[in-house]
């Protein structure tokens, strides 16, 4: 069966510090991978998606970046965090099998102080 992992689960970082969030998927090959951000009490904002190694599409211009160094690894980074980067970050994967369901990870709660 497929599983998706995210870490860390929670993170508190000062403004201006770097960020690295990691997401890995097990049990599937060549998945589409996604990073979403969710502010408190709000909806899902798609940040990046990737259809393959080294292929990243950015949906929202910002101080965040994403990388996919391996087939089932997706990393969200920032060189200098802003207060507005606080939120709940969700990684998801999908594989087209006649439907388009995305499977979400447990999320990372980021607080920028």
């Amino acid at each position, binding site marked *: 069966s497929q599983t998706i992992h995210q870490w860390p689960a929670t993170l508190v970082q000062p403004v201006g510090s770097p960020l690295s969030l990691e997401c890995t998927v097990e049990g599937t090959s060549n998945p*589409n991978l*996604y990073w979403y951000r*969710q*502010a408190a*009490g*709000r*909806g*899902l*904002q*798609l940040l990046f*998606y990737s*259809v393959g190694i080294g292929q990243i*599409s950015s949906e929202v211009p910002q101080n965040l970046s994403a990388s996919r160094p391996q087939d089932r690894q997706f990393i969200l980074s920032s060189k200098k965090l802003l207060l507005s980067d606080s939120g*709940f970050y*969700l990684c*998801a994967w*999908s594989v087209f099998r006649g*439907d*388009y*369901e*995305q*499977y*979400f*990870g*447990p*999320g990372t*709660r980021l607080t920028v102080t």
Partner: protein
Amino acid sequence: GESVGLHLPTLSVQEGDNSIINCAYSNSASDYFIWYKQESGKGPQFIIDIRSNMDKRQGQRVTVLLNKTVKHLSLQIAATQPGDSAVYFCAENIPGANNLFFGTGTRLTVIP
């Protein structure tokens, strides 16, 4: 599209009553729809899906209705329980896109 800047609409229901959560989708070409449930502090979880060639689909205590004429999707939860309290998102797939498009979400609160 995504309404991520808006506060979530809320729905409060008495335990045991039926709940109806509504969603308006944006693209008449959308061919597949999903309802997700997100409990506090967790990632969204799949509830039920429906293809555009269907009007209704039933699961365990849940029913999804699709009205393509008015681009409207609804989720009905029968005999709502406290464990149903969560945020519910609809999502649509547009052919050719690599990602789902999520609705704003609705916060359901079940009153014991």
